[in-house]
């Protein structure tokens, strides 16, 4: 990202240059040779300026898509971030071994411990009666 620039760095003030060129053209009647050189020089400057603006525009960040697409992408990314945060929170506080009361577990959203029946169906181990 070292090549990125801001919008303020892009010079798009072309109209004064064009104005100068037109002015020089009007003066052509008085000093035709000098004026022609001046005009061609200014046209070259204008061309350079336009080319420079073109290359600067390529370096501007975040304009590879339009505004709507960018906002949509940001919304999607926010959603994804939210989902990941929730996932982490869910698994960080998934099982609390020190809450024995089932009602308290339900109130706090902590899943109930595995029953003997589930244990046997999943692992084949006969559970103990506490």
């Amino acid at each position, binding site marked *: 990202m070292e090549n990125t620039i*801001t*919008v303020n760095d*892009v010079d*798009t003030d*072309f*109209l004064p240059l*064009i104005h100068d*060129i*037109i002015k020089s*053209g009007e003066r*052509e009647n008085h000093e035709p040779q000098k004026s022609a050189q001046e*005009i061609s020089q200014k*046209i070259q400057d*204008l*061309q350079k300026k*336009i080319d420079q*603006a*073109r290359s600067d*525009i*390529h370096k*501007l*960040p*975040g*304009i*590879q*898509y*339009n*505004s*709507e*697409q*960018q*906002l949509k*992408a*940001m919304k999607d*990314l*926010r959603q*994804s*971030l939210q989902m*990941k*945060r929730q*996932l*982490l929170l869910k*698994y*960080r506080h998934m099982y609390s071994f020190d809450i024995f009361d089932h009602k308290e577990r339900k109130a706090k959203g902590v899943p109930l411990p595995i029953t003997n029946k589930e244990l046997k169906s999943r*692992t*084949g*181990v*006969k559970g103990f009666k506490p």
Partner: protein
Amino acid sequence: MSANTSTRDKLLGLLDDFELLSRELIENLSAGRQQKINVQHQLLLTEQLVATDNEIKATLKVAEHQAEVEKKVNDIKEEIETQDQHITQMQKHFKEAENILATALFQAKQKLQSINKASKHPVSSEDLIKYAHRISASNAVCAPLTWQPGDARRPYPTDIEMRMGYLGRLSDLPLNGHIMQPQGLADMVRSNNQIDRQASQQNQFAWHSTGDMHLGVGSGVIDTRNHSKDVSEDVEVMSTDSSSSSSSDSQ
């Protein structure tokens, strides 16, 4: 089409337009001096040029806004990356926990199996103690406290005891025709005396057939009887002072 055009393409298109218009205007102006070209056309070109310039400026403002949004997007992406790392870390921990739990479950299964096995063949504590005394009397690392010269008891397995063991009985298998498999400690304790007698009788027959070992076997028979008596006495003696062997075993 314009809805899907990126801001960059739009800006570049506007610049191209501006370049074309300015070129046309300048060419018209230089040509106009020679051949009086329509002034209205030049006016129109100038207006278009100014409009394009304004549009470029407006689009640049949009680009500026998009650059700010891009910063936020980058921040969100960084945050997502951090969360991804946390998720990977957590996944790693879960995998470790799964391994530990699987091992624990396997061991618990084995323990349950042995518990079930033990509850199917219960052994009374009396039998267990008797057997423990028997082991400590004949296979202890030191002689009993009451041992005196002439005592038949030894801290190592005697000849007869070796014959009573599996190795000794292996040679009897073809003669017996069946394998004796005592189940559990209680059976072993109960069957030990019988085995003593059986073994001595069988050995008597077996060694009779070879002939030359007859005398040795005779003494063996006597030894067995003495030994069985000794054992019963040992049990009595050891039960009175239950100090040395049992305590050392428990440690």
